[in-house]
């Protein structure tokens, strides 16, 4: 069914990605994404909140790669529960939680979430900070910041500054300032087609190239405002090489002190990042990045890479 929406251009593109199993991808796009949630330990202990959910006969299981992350085993309208409204839980896709786990924030650090709205990853970072250190949750679109602000409020985050800057200007005001930066970049969203089939319908390589330019500028800005020895995570919820490996490859060529680090996340299935595309050899380091296809974990598709800034 979904194939009838697809242009030949996208079909041909996907067929060229060597590690991608096309039929499995189409099948996973046709199925709904699972409902994931995090338990907010900024408010109450994890077990107390889980017990409240159990009393409502909500069935769930632990997500192995995400602290405080769970996945529903049976359909349940979590968004209208008291627990959701009070900020005891936060609805978030299970693979989306992997970006922050890869970033591995530590209490006391100063952390920038450069493209923060609607706040899933910002609230996850703040939970791990446990009120110590500072989170800067930035998004340039004021309308999207309303959702971001509401979610930070609901989860009870007090060590946060919400800003509405274009991410690319951060090096001008905060060069080498942050311990960690998350760039969950705007992208063509091929990893979450199950949520919205129009992604497939509207896809074009022209749009991918446009996004790729912006993504590189954001990633370079993020790197430049990292402290020496600091770490950043670049992630997208898409599958194109131009928005993922090629963006990182350009950074490695333009910044000699950028090093890719390995990501170890318990139980998360993925393919290694590509080191060759269109007959072009890319950095071997890119094999340390994660290409997560929707069929790997029966959830969202993502690309995640962790980069350290050397001295």
């Amino acid at each position, binding site marked *: 069914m979904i194939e009838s929406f697809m242009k030949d251009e996208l079909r041909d593109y996907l067929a060229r990605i060597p590690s991608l199993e096309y039929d499995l991808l189409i099948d996973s796009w046709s199925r709904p994404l699972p409902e994931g949630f995090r338990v907010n330990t900024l408010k109450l202990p994890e077990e107390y909140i889980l017990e409240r959910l159990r009393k409502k006969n909500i069935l769930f299981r632990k997500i192995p790669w995400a602290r405080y992350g769970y996945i529903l085993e049976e359909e349940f309208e979590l968004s209208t529960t008291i627990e959701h409204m009070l900020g005891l839980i936060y609805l978030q896709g299970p693979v989306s939680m992997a970006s922050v786990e890869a970033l591995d924030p530590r209490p006391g650090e100063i952390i920038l979430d450069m493209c923060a709205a609607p706040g899933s990853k910002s609230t996850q970072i703040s939970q791990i900070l446990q009120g110590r250190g*500072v989170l800067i949750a930035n998004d340039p679109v004021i309308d999207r910041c309303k959702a971001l602000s509401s979610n930070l409020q609901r989860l009870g985050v007090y060590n946060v*500054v919400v800003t509405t800057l274009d991410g690319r200007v951060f090096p001008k005001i905060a060069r080498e300032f942050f311990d960690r930066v998350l760039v969950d970049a705007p992208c063509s969203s091929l990893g979450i087609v199950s949520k919205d089939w129009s992604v497939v319908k509207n896809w074009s390589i022209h749009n991918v190239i446009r996004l790729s330019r912006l993504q590189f500028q954001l990633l370079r800005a993020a790197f430049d405002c990292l402290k020496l020895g600091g770490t950043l995570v670049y992630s997208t919820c898409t599958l194109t090489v131009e928005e993922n490996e090629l963006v990182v490859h350009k950074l490695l060529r333009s910044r000699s002190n950028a090093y890719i680090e390995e990501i170890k996340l318990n139980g998360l299935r993925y393919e290694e990042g590509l080191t060759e595309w269109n007959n072009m050899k890319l950095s071997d380091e890119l094999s340390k990045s994660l290409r997560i296809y929707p069929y790997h974990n029966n959830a969202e598709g993502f690309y995640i890479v962790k980069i350290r800034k050397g001295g």
Partner: protein
Amino acid sequence: MKILNDSEKKILQELLYQQHGVKEAFEEFILVMGGDSKIRATTLETIEVARKLRKVLQIGVYVAKYRRNKNDVFLSIEGSQLLNNQITKNVVELSEEECREWMRGAPIHLSINTDSRYIVGKIDKIYLGSARVSRDGKLYPQIAVWRRIPEE
């Protein structure tokens, strides 16, 4: 946004002591007040970082609304949760069903004996912010519209 100085913070703390028995409320936080009389709590380090940045939309978490002209204060959900068991006065324990009504923003009829304009709701360990006590004995929970549980 304006940082509350010591004497302004003291006034707020005194009100919260009279109203809810909280001693030195939000003592470990820096409090800032927005133009809408909303008080937000944050840390000194967060304020220092914010000073370095531009296009700051907001800082910290909204904890209370202080109305100088009426000399009263009510707590947001997060404000009451940060204070939690320090709240010893004018606090009412709700059932699960009353809690749902509270989170719908619907008036709740409870027979309580208080002179206070505001009381705090709670269910087990979970604090739910303030409700206004009306003359007819009903409680009007001060829940923001975006946060209300929709009608079934």
